């Protein structure tokens, strides 16, 4: 495809969208462009809204907004494989296996992906494979945001960690990130 892929995001919070935006810009510059109208009109604010409305979001994305791809963000809040699988199965079933849907499902929450990046930054020479996903979401959020409550200040902290995003390294540390990244690779390979 010669033109950039028109994408939308349907997920439970702004941190996921921040990660996605920076990921796409860094790893695939000029390959994706956000459909702005979908971006401001269609928004979920929690897991329930994502789970219950993902099918219509995909319908609207494709039929009304002409998206090429919809990224779906959903934290699992768990490290239990069965729970994580259940979330994936529900979302895949809701999307009826549509190839235009890409799932972004961090183990626990998106802040764990940020935390890996922070760990990498503070331990640049370490080869230790620290499994941060076993820590709770509360610990991860405290680690990334400190005592910040304001969402803009929180996102600023997250954004700073995304500069110089090292995909290869993050893939090697986080299975859930690898799973997401591989879906993007597979999607692009079709074009």
């Amino acid at each position: 495809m010669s033109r950039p892929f028109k994408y939308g995001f349907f997920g439970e919070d702004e941190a996921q969208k921040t990660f996605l935006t920076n990921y796409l810009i860094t790893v695939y510059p000029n390959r994706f462009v956000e459909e702005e109208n979908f971006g401001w009109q269609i928004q979920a604010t929690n897991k329930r809204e994502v789970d219950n409305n993902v099918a219509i979001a995909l319908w609207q994305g494709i039929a009304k907004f002409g998206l090429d791809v919809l990224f779906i963000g959903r934290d699992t809040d768990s490290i239990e494989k069965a729970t994580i699988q259940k979330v994936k199965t529900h979302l895949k079933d809701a999307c009826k296996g549509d190839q235009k849907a890409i799932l972004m499902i961090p183990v626990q929450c998106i802040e764990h992906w940020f935390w890996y990046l922070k760990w990498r930054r503070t331990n640049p020479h370490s080869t230790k494979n620290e499994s941060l996903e076993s820590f709770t979401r509360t610990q991860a959020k405290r680690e990334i945001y400190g005592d910040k409550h304001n969402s803009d200040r929180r996102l600023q902290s997250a954004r700073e960690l995304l500069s110089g995003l090292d995909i290869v390294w993050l893939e090697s540390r986080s299975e859930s990130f690898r799973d997401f990244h591989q879906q993007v690779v597979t999607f692009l390979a079709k074009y």
Partner: protein
Amino acid sequence: MLKRVSIQNFKSLKDVTLDLQKVNLLIGPNNSGKTNFLKALEYMVKDNTNQAELEYKRLSFNQNAESQIKIQFEYDHDQDYKVNIVFETKINESSEISKSYWIYQDKELVSHKRSDRGAYDTNELKSRTGELKIYKPDSNRIDKPGPVGTGEEVVNADASNIVGFLDLMLSRYRRNIFDQIELYIHQCIPEFDEIKLDDVQPNDNLKKIYSEDKINNSFKRFGLANGKQNITFWSNELSEGTLYFLALLCIIHQPNPPKLLLLEEPEKGIHPRRIKEVVNFIFRLADEKDIQVIMTTHSPIVLDMFKDMPESVFIFDKNNDEGATKVKNLQRDVIEPDTKRSEDLGIEPPHYTDSLGDSWTVGFLGGVPK
């Protein structure tokens, strides 16, 4: 029943037409034109025929003094469905207000009367709507003592005369109305089982609020009592939500409610679990007293209660370029075209009514802030 309202160039309503139902719900972001729509309805029954509208520029779309304001009400005839009656208020570029009405039978014009020819009777419309008010209770007014013995059978738009109203209901309509209000209060806020009214002396603040003719009346305050514990919470000690709820009950239970009830955000200040009951009271009022209702809301819970009547839901948005209000009907302009689009694409249509509140909050229906 008021079947159709068309408005041109009134405030943000450049050109909108709503086909109304018995109960109607207006949703949309703040400043999208919902209140302007109610104000246009209120304006329609003002006694201002053939006068000059001093506020013409302020009332006209984009404050453009060159556009003619036009508001039309279309009714079915009470007995004959083939007869339509259209009432119209127009303000022309010279700020002059004129009113007209037309009668059509089988779409053929039968009669036309115009106020500027002296043939129009404003009471004809008023007999259909009653006094139109946009009910928006103000807790800062409800919690104050008020004069009694003023014959308050009608609740003010801000419910500021609730003490006088309750006092009259107690003395004149105890069983039919006062006891009903008390019962509903107890059902929804079980710790209260009695509405109390108590004499008070008007202080300086009250004297400032009320005019000379009312300050000589007796003043009372109301409270809600817990009989078991023998405690009364007077109006200034009650929460905003409780005050608002009581005001709503009074509006709904007026002995002669308006035939067209305009309500702003009936869920305001009310616990999510109680919102269903409030809306059910409103539905019951529409059924039992044959009242047409138009209300606004910001509550997904209220919207969920309209899942079986999407034709009653109107979604307000503003056109960003010129600031004109756009209105979509949920059934006709959202569900039907999206179902058709799905059929064309050979895919399952979206089931918005499974969870209307969610569909609105997430943005599938429109009517969300940018």
